């Protein structure tokens, strides 16, 4: 009896310690489907709302007036204002990069621009990339951006939902990872740079709807993509490789039919891990801060459908273990970012979206 009592006490203590590992604070609320966040050096934050506004948070307060409502934006379904990243020399040149959808219901596409942030205005807006051809669906734009250590820009493009077979063709941008220079030109060392049998800006292909992209501290490029019903993937990216969609997949179509009966094939890459049933990964980051030493080097994946964040403990390029976190919020999580202050930031996906800050309990 005494032993059982002591075990119960121990269990309660451990549970209590886990529960108090972190605390969650609201940084901003009332955001319309916030999609991405960027951290400025002065502590301010820039947030994109899918409904088209770029907002600034100053001293922990959301400014009521948006910085900009971008021209030519097409807001429909999964489209709208999507990602934002800062130039690696932002403190000097104030340049940032934005992705969003343009066009119309019957002819829309992903576009990426660069612009100079001048106070609360966007100046010198330059179009760097527009996905081609256009599509007539409001789904699967991709839209994540990342800068490589060599200052080239990576862009994910989705396969447009109804155009999945075109992810296997190299004459279009559906289901591709694109690599361009910061002025929009194509790097000479791209795998298809000669442009003979493929569009030269294509870096990898065979993707479905990649909404997560990061370059880790060791230079590895990671990408996650939504599967259909099951088969969400985490991929380790290598230039020129084919990631299989829709020829191979671990998921099935929403209708219940096969997208493909095959899960592997020659010359097609396998994911590092996949999630079935789908968690719907919306964005991810690598934690490099000091506030949570035990999280250092972990990947954090925002999960829309699962209403959680997956913490992936990585070892030798593989997922050693996973922890499902923040389910107590009961919120679709669109994005998770590690701030330069060491905190973890979550964006919740709703008409009344929030920015949440995760800090150590003590």
């Amino acid at each position: 009896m005494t032993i059982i009592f002591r075990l119960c006490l121990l269990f309660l203590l451990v549970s209590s310690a886990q529960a108090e590992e972190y605390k969650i604070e609201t940084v901003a609320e009332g955001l319309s489907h916030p999609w991405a966040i960027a951290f400025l050096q002065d502590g301010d934050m820039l947030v994109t709302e899918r409904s088209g506004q770029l907002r600034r948070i100053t001293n922990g307060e959301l400014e009521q007036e948006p910085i900009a409502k971008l021209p030519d934006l097409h807001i429909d379904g999964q489209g709208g204002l999507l990602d934002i990243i800062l130039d690696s020399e932002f403190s000097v040149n104030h340049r940032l990069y934005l992705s969003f959808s343009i066009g119309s219901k019957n002819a829309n596409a992903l576009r990426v621009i660069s612009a100079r942030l001048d106070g609360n205005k966007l100046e010198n807006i330059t179009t760097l990339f527009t996905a081609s051809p256009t599509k007539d669906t409001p789904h699967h734009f991709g839209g994540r951006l990342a800068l490589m250590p060599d200052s080239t820009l990576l862009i994910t493009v989705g396969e447009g939902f109804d155009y999945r077979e075109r992810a296997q063709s190299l004459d279009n941008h559906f289901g591709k990872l694109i690599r361009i220079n910061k002025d929009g030109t194509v790097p000479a060392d791209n795998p298809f740079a000669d442009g003979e049998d493929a569009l030269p800006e294509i870096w990898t292909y065979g993707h479905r709807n990649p909404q997560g992209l990061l370059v880790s501290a060791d230079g590895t490029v990671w990408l996650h993509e939504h599967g259909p019903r099951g088969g969400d993937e985490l991929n380790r990216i290598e230039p020129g490789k084919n990631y299989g969609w829709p020829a191979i997949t671990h998921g099935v179509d929403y209708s219940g039919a096969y997208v493909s009966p095959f899960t592997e094939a020659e010359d097609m890459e396998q994911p590092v891990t996949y999630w079935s049933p789908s968690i719907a990964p919306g964005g991810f980051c690598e934690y490099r801060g000091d506030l949570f030493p035990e999280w250092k080097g972990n990947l954090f994946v925002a999960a829309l459908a699962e209403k959680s964040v997956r913490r992936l403990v990585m070892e030798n390029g593989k997922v050693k273990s996973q922890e499902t976190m923040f389910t107590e919020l009961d919120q679709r999580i669109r994005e998770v970012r590690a701030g330069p202050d060491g905190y973890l930031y979550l964006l919740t996906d709703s008409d009344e979206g929030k920015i949440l800050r995760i800090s150590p309990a003590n």
Partner: protein
Amino acid sequence: MKLLKTMLYFIVAVLATFLLASIVGTQLVLADIQGFGLLVSSSDRVAATMHDIAGLATMLPILISVTFLLAFIIAESGRRIMAGKRTYWYMAAGLASLPAALTLIKTLMGGTVFAAARTDSGMLLIAFCGLIGGWLFARLVNRGKAE
């Protein structure tokens, strides 16, 4: 009794159309897979076809039932107002019903729920499955009336 018989004919027509559409859909998807350079063996084909019949068994029969119901009501009304052979009216209704429903769903939801119907040729084949369903229903009703 007459109503029960008509319902039975309707269910037979829906199931036949569902099986045909499912089989056609699988072959179209497998043709695309072969186009990527993967080898699809006969056993792969049979297994995939059976898998898809089971996988689509919840969504597709419901879709076909709803669209056939509306299409056949319109066909019967048309036949009574304008006359003509029942078989032709129901074949036309069956032919038009699935493309109309899938197009409507795409307009509302932004995507094609039945992958086989994403291309013009796929949509045509699915429409043809509907035509056979309409023909079968009319034929069963005609035979019932003759009896």
